[in-house]
């Protein structure tokens, strides 16, 4: 019988997911692993995990992985990639890591056109620390540090990283995806593959933003969180390609 699907070998085979029910991190790290296998880059890839739930990446990967200080993944990746250009480097960062404490490193690496791949998991909240206000928290959405909900007068508005990085000239590829439906999971995988392919071809900075749910810190059950993601998150963060210069460079 032909085997048409198997668990990616890039993840530790004896590990069971410890992510919360309804969390999409497991899906995303599976997709990354599948892409690595399909592109045959498993033995030369390094992941740079951010801090927060993204920092749990190392619990599952069976390939080279390093840990950046909170927010500094793009700076660490710059050092790794520049000092050893043959390595395929990707960062794995959440919204607090990439868009709040690490905004400067993210913007500057994108502006330099660093030749690595950024996987940005945006769930609109700080996960691991327990649901505090994130730069991507929706207006009105409650958080542990915004008990009355995000108030633009006090907290400003959600930040749109694909659109912000889209103001820079250097980035090659910026796409926002989600993993809320099987169809969107397939699209996300295609985007991740393109972002890695760009790096292999030496084309420069690529980022895939993946809008995900955090049922635990949103205070919802997994299915309710999926509805919220579709009805609210994807309205604030529209899916689509925000930059694609892949054919030009």
């Amino acid at each position, binding site marked *: 019988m032909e085997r048409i699907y198997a668990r990616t070998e890039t993840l530790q085979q004896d590990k069971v997911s410890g992510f919360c029910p309804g969390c999409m991190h497991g899906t995303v790290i599976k997709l990354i692993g599948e892409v690595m296998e399909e592109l045959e880059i498993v*033995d030369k890839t*390094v992941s*740079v995990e951010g801090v927060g739930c993204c920092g749990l990446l190392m619990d599952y990967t069976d390939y*080279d992985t390093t840990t950046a200080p909170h927010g500094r993944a793009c700076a660490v990746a710059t050092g790794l990639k*520049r000092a050893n250009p043959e390595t395929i480097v990707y960062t794995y960062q959440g919204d607090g890591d990439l868009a709040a404490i690490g905004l*400067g490193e993210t913007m500057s690496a994108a502006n330099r056109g660093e030749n690595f791949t950024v996987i940005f998991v945006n769930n609109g909240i700080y996960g691991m620390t327990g649901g505090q206000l994130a730069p991507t928290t929706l207006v009105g959405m409650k958080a542990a540090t915004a008990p009355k909900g995000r108030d633009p007068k006090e907290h400003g508005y959600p930040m749109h990283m694909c659109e912000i990085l889209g103001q820079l000239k250097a980035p090659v590829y910026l796409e926002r995806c989600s993993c809320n439906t099987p169809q969107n999971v397939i699209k996300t995988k295609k985007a991740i593959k393109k972002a890695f392919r760009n790096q292999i071809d030496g084309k420069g900075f690529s980022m895939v933003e993946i809008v995900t749910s955090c049922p635990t810190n949103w205070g919802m059950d997994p299915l309710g969180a999926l509805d919220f993601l579709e009805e609210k998150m994807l309205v604030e963060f529209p899916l689509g390609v925000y930059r694609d210069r892949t054919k030009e460079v």
Partner: protein
Amino acid sequence: MARVLMKGCEAIAEAAVRAGCRFFAGYPITPQNEIPEYLSRRLPEVGGIFVQGESEIASINMVYGAGQTGTRSLTSSSSTGVSLYSEGVSFCASARIPIVYVNVARGGPGIGAIQPSQQDYLQAAKASGNGGFQMLVFAPSTVQEAADMTYRAFDCADRDRNPVLILADGVIGTIMEPVELPPMKSEEEVAANKKSKRSWACVGHKLGREHRSWIEPGSFDTTNLQQRNEEAAKMYETWTPEWEAYQVDDAEVVLTGYGISARIAKAVVDELRLEGKKAGLIRPITVNPFPYEAYEHIDYSCCKGILDVEMAIPALMIHDVKAGVKERASIDTCLCSGGNIMRKKAVMDAAGKILER
């Protein structure tokens, strides 16, 4: 090898290249700009990488990343900029990534002054970041020493898989002196050094626990983390403190200081000796580990007092000097701060007062 006339910062930069450093990231701050400026020209000549980071925080993390590939990596800054290195250096220590960094110290606290100072002693020697890690800290008092220490620092960093700090100051960084540069490591030696770190370098390996490289500056497993801290503590114990003892044996006054203060104090010792006055100097070369033992070589039966000479107010190294002297002699101070350079006359006067006792 012929001696060349070089600024301290440039000698540090060239010595790093000769030691096999092939990656530098840094952010502009006075008085150390000649290090990044020099390396932005020099590193590409030897196939090295220079990056101007968007901040000190980004720069130390780029060096943390580059160090993980096994590439000898350097950053430099000054005082308030070095404060921003704290987290990154602590990560290097915890994850066991060898890097070298330089503090060309200036006046403080805060943004302070661009002029030379020694006010970062405690930060450099005791706690350069959170978590109680330790580093070898070399304190040059001449441009020659700055070059030699930088060259050697890369070997120490690789041997220990730990960060090493060169604690210079604005005088050493900007003064021009003749210097004999250390030999240039060949490209084969540089490549072999990098290759020797291949097993732990985060550059891609085969899948699986027995192959993969994991750089883990932390752990959810507290037993594991305690074990790692215990191993680090054992490594710190292998370090040997270094110092210079100058005319100490029969000294009635012993001056003590590091870096540029020690150099000025040494000139005072020479002048006092010419006058027939018995003065000596103890100069810590490593300020961590601190050479407490050096103060055992003082003849306390004839020593009228110790003079602690520092470009810091309040005195900072004095706590270590006290621990070395163990109340066997009184300790006076000769201090300046905030970017003022130690005056030889002030040291002469202070030493003279002790001799009059």
